[in-house]
C-alpha cells in the first residue's frame, strides 16, 4: 500500500527528471521535436481541461488565444526587440485578460451557444490578423529574427520552456482540483443552477477558470511563433489545434489532472508518426480523417476516457454503462 502511494506520488517527478535529461543525451532530432510538441499540447490540454473538464464548458476558442499569443509575441519581438522567452508569460497574461473579457460576455451562454461564441472569437481574431496588414503583414505573415544559437541546439531552450509550461499546467491543475475553486467548478459542471443555489458565484468562477485556462494557450502560442520564426493567420489559428486539445482531454479523461497529459502523450506522437509515415501530399488529409475517427471512437466506446475507465474497471470490473438511476443502489435505503 505504502509502495503504491510512493509510486503514485513519485512517478511524475521521476518522469520530469527523465525529460530534463533527454536533451543532454540527444540535443536535436525528431524525437526531441516530438517531445517538445507533446509537452506543448499536453500543457494546453491541461489548460483547456480547467474550463472544459472541471467546469464542463467546451471551448473552441483556445486556438484563438494561441494565435493571438503568437502574434503578440512576434510583434513585441519585431517592433520592440523584446525576447519571446521573456514576453511569453506576459503574453499569456494578456490572453488571460482578454479571456476574462470574452468570458464575461460568452459565459452568459451555456452549452452549444458557448461553443459557437468561442468559435466565432477564433475566426474574428484570425480575420483581424489577416486584415491588419500594416501591423501583421496580412496573409504573408511575420518573420521573426532567429535565435542566436547553433542550428542544432536551437530546439533545446524551447524544449525546456514547453516542459516548464507543462509542469506549471499540472501544478496549477492540481492546486485547482484540491481547492474550493475546483470543487465549485465541478459543481458548475454537474448542475450550474444547483451550484448557484449553494452559494457558488458561478460567473466569477467561470470567468476566472477561463482566464487561467487560456493563459497556457497564449503562452504556448508565443513560444511556438518563435520556434517556427514565423507566424501567419492560417498557421496560428488552425482549428485543428483546438480539436487536438479536446480529443486529447477526452481520450485521457476529462476533469482529471493527468487525463489530458496522458491523452497528449498518446495522441500527439501517434499523429506525428502517422504524418511522418505518409507521403506529404496525403499526410494532412489522412491525419484529419484519423483524428475524426479517433474522436468518434472515443465518444462511442470510451466516453469516460482512459483513466476513468481504468479506475472503474479496477474498482468494479467492467464499466456499468446504464444511467445512474438504473443501477442497483450500493446501500439499502436508510430508515
Amino acid at each position: 500500500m505504502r509502495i503504491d502511494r510512493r509510486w503514485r506520488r513519485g512517478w511524475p517527478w521521476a518522469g520530469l527528471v527523465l525529460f530534463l535529461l533527454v536533451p543532454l543525451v540527444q540535443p536535436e532530432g525528431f524525437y526531441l521535436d516530438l517531445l517538445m510538441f507533446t509537452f506543448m499540447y499536453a500543457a494546453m490540454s491541461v489548460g483547456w481541461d480547467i474550463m472544459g473538464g472541471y467546469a464542463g464548458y467546451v471551448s473552441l476558442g483556445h486556438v484563438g488565444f494561441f494565435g493571438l499569443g503568437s502574434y503578440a509575441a512576434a510583434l513585441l519581438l519585431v517592433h520592440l526587440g523584446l525576447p519571446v522567452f521573456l514576453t511569453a508569460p506576459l503574453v499569456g497574461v494578456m490572453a488571460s485578460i482578454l479571456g476574462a473579457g470574452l468570458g464575461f460576455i460568452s459565459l452568459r451562454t451555456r452549452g452549444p451557444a458557448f461553443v459557437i461564441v468561442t468559435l466565432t472569437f477564433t475566426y474574428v481574431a484570425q480575420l483581424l490578423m489577416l486584415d491588419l496588414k500594416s501591423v501583421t503583414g496580412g496573409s504573408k505573415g511575420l518573420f521573426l529574427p532567429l535565435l542566436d544559437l547553433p542550428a542544432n541546439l536551437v530546439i533545446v531552450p524551447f524544449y525546456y520552456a514547453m516542459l516548464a509550461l507543462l509542469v506549471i499546467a499540472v501544478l496549477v491543475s492540481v492546486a485547482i482540483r484540491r481547492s474550493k475553486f475546483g470543487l465549485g467548478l465541478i459543481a458548475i459542471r454537474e448542475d450550474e443552477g444547483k451550484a448557484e443555489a449553494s452559494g457558488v458565484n458561478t460567473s466569477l468562477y467561470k470567468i476566472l477558470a477561463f482566464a487561467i485556462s487560456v493563459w497556457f494557450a497564449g503562452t504556448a502560442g508565443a513560444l511556438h511563433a518563435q520556434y517556427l520564426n514565423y507566424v501567419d493567420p492560417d498557421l496560428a489559428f488552425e482549428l485543428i489545434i483546438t480539436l487536438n486539445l479536446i480529443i486529447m482531454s477526452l481520450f485521457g479523461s476529462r476533469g482529471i489532472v493527468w487525463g489530458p497529459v496522458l491523452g497528449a502523450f498518446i495522441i500527439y506522437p501517434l499523429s506525428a508518426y502517422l504524418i511522418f509515415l505518409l507521403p506529404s501530399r496525403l499526410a494532412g488529409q489522412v491525419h484529419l480523417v484519423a483524428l475524426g475517427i479517433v474522436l468518434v471512437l472515443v465518444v462511442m466506446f470510451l466516453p469516460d476516457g482512459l483513466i476513468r475507465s481504468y479506475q472503474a474497471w479496477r474498482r468494479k470490473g467492467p464499466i456499468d454503462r446504464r444511467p445512474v438511476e438504473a443501477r442497483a443502489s450500493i446501500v439499502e435505503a436508510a430508515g
Partner: protein
Amino acid sequence: MTDDLAIHSVAKSFGGITALSDCSLEVRAGSITALIGPNGSGKTTLFNCVTGFYRPEQGDMRFGDAVLVGLRPNEVVHLGIARTFQVTRIFKNMTVLENMIVPIRQLGLRTLFTAGIKGHERQRAEELLEFFGIAFLRDELAGRLSFGQQKLLELAAALMAEPKLLMLDEPAGGLNPVMIDRLTAYIRELNAGGMTFLIIEHNMGFVMQLCEPVLVMHRGRVIARGTPDAVRANPAVLDAYLGD
C-alpha cells in the same frame, strides 16, 4: 430587526400566464410555515423569486432589512436563505462529502484557493451527515445513493450554508412513512435550535402535524393563513382544492 421574510405585492408572469399576482405573505423568524395550494398555484414560482432564480416584475421582498429583489441566487444564500428543490438536485458525480462542502460560504477570492476540504469543515459535514444518519456514505458518489438518502443529503448540504431560513420544496415527496417521521423529527430539532422553515408540501398529514402557520396559495396569491385547523375549515381553501 428579526429575520422575517416579508413579501409584498409580488407579480410574475410567463408570457400570457400569470404565476404570481399581488402575492403577499410573511414568514416569521423561528416559525415552521407551510405553503400549500393546488398544483399551479404559484408556490414554486414564489420560491424561485425569493431565491433569485426569477426576478419578479413588481413587488417587494425583504429578509430582515435586506432587499431580495435583484439578487442572484448565490447572494441570497449569503444572506442566510437556503433552499431545496422539488426534484432533488445533488451533484451526482461528486462524493457525499464534496456535496456537503460546496455550499460552504466563500469570502472573497483568497478563500477560493484554500484547501477543498478543511479539517473543521469536514467535522461539521460529518456531524450533519451523522445527524441525518448517512455519515457512513461520506465517500460514495452521491448519484449512487437511494432516493431517500439523496433527499437527506440535499437537506444536510443546505444546512452547511448555516441558513437562518430554510425553504424546502416538497421535502416529503416520495418518502416512505418511516423516512417522513425521521424528517419531521429533524426539522423540529433544527427549528428548536432557532432555524426558520418555509415548506411547500402536498402531504397534508406532514403539514398538519409539523407546521404553523399554514399559508394557502391559489392562482398566484395567498388566500388563507392560519393554524392547520383553521385552514382546514376555511371554505375558500376547500374551494381552491375542490372547486373549478
